[in-house]
């Protein structure tokens, strides 16, 4: 897998590179939005690992600008941020997953592999944000398929928020891992596309829209 790293801290990039360098091929790195957009578009990596916070615009800007030229690009967001605004903003911009920077190297490699294979990667924290965003039970939403999490999806999100891995979720719910991944991807798609009243209000509350 060819991976591109974006983080404004050179030390952190070096650390990540050293940790995952054996498992994946780190083909490039950048510390600013402009460098990152140019580098990713030039090198076409399999996965771009992008920091949520950058001085001149943040991961969201990078994702939006790259996707405008190369819609197939795959992003994994990596951040120390605790704020729902930042995290949900990069997910809605198009990142396929979010992990915190305290993640250990094998888990990070695993997350990179997952997004590369087309799955979504949810940390417990992101699962919590999602549940928060989709919470409430409004009658007659405009597009029920899109605007509400199914009860299965909610269950999956809850277990992930409780710290379960996909495999553990699968065992617990008597599903295959692939099915769990399908559910998570569906949640990700809903998060990116959903325009439900309450989610919109929730996002507007936090100045995401």
């Amino acid at each position, binding site marked *: 897998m060819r991976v591109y790293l974006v983080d404004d801290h050179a030390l952190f990039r070096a650390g990540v590179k050293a940790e995952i360098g054996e498992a994946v091929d780190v083909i490039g790195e950048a510390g600013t939005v402009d460098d990152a957009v140019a580098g990713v578009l030039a090198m076409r990596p399999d996965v771009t690992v992008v920091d949520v916070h950058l001085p001149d615009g943040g991961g969201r800007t990078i994702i939006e600008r790259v996707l405008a030229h190369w819609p197939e690009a795959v992003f994994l967001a990596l951040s120390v941020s605790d704020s729902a605004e930042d995290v949900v903003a990069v997910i809605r911009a198009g990142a396929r997953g979010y992990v915190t920077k305290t993640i250990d190297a094998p888990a990070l490699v695993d997350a990179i592999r997952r997004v590369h294979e087309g799955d979504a990667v949810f940390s*417990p924290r992101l699962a*919590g944000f999602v*549940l*928060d965003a989709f919470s*409430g039970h409004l009658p007659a939403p405009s597009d029920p398929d899109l605007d509400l999490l199914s009860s299965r999806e909610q269950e999956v999100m809850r277990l992930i*928020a*409780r710290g379960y891995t996909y495999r553990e979720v699968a065992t617990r719910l008597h599903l295959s891992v692939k099915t769990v991944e399908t559910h998570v991807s569906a949640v990700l798609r809903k998060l990116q596309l959903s325009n439900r009243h309450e989610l919109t209000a929730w996002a507007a509350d936090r100045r995401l829209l």
Partner: protein
Amino acid sequence: MTSGAPRAPFPAPSGPPASGRTSTPSRTPRSLRRAVTFPRRDDGRIVAGVAGGFADEYGVDPTLVRVLLVVLSLAAGTGLVLYALGIVLASEPTTSRPPRPTDPQRTLSVACVATGIVLLVRSTGLWLGDAVMVPLVAVAAGVVVLGLVRPDRPATPGVAANANGSAAVVELTSGRRARARLFAGAALVSFGLLVVGVREDASNGLRIGAFATALTVIGVAVLVGPWLARLAQEAAAERRERIRVEEREAMAAHLHDSVLQTLALIQRTADDPRRTVTLARQQERELREWLYGQGVARRTAGGVGPVGLAAALRGAVQDVESTYDVRIEAVVVGDAPLDPAMDALVAAAREACVNAAKHSGTDEISLYAEVRGTAAEVFVRDRGNGFDRAAVAPDRRGIAQSIEARLERVGGSARVETAAGEGTEWQLSVPVAAVPTAPSTAPPARRSEVP
């Protein structure tokens, strides 16, 4: 931010900043404009740059144009009318250099043109008689002179002028030229008022008296107005600057007390990895609370103030983390006001975390809390060595008392899933009070609002 707005993948190339004047659209209709298409001059102009612009456009000597205008002005003011037409019809100046108000040549020429206009008006029937117009003109001239009393703004007004709030005022009143202008203006205004007062006669004394009063008010306003405005402006700027400085100082003080101290400690204890990790974790948690939390960390003790379940759980988690040197990934969805049931839930969750920290053998614990409809649930999970519930002596107080009995007393329940070698998960639940007894004091749960 509108997600649906067309994206501009790259910022549009920002051209050279257009000068304000040239980009200002003129209100003159285009057809008229086409007939007289010469731009007024801004650089090296005398009054409004009409003569200069005309001369530039048609390649004649500007002095010739000006002399011609003056001569024509003597012929019943034709030159002045032409000049006024020029101002209206000619396009905006091509250069954006602002006129220099202190240019004596320009001031003189403006005075000449103004005098010309006054004389022209006097020769027509519009004159109200010298008795009224002479003082009026004097007052007008005084006001104009006063208007020229402007402090020469420094090149970067935002910085220099704000540095000292009273600088502009000092500038306004000091300086020989400024003071001379101030006195001249005041003298002219006073003269005008005096004349009006003296000329008072029986028939229209009242009217002139009112006129004089109005003039006095206007004169005072003209004299003092800019002063007051500037003073208010300076005060506001000073206040903004002070707030900014205070914020910066507060942040510097906080970083010094926390992050810098911790970094120094870490350097000294670099050979003790466990201590280093503990310090780093504590600092990270503290900084996070400061950055993303609601200011000072509110603890559960006392239960004073509008502390909700989420904040109380976070406080408990932080206590356990720093006491037992573990990392607890806490995710909280929703919130509820604290009541005895919630207090019990927090205490039980804390105990579950402590158990996991002490007995599980791992230092990674997950805590997930959700307020959903009628119940508040907390899950505390570790991937440690687990335990055999039957093997735990029934008199061990931790589980029996602190967790199960505590929740049962408030109508809740506690379940534990564990097996040797497979980790442990506590599932704690209490009912949420359906209707708060005192809704006015209870903070509403955020997600219970239905639009």
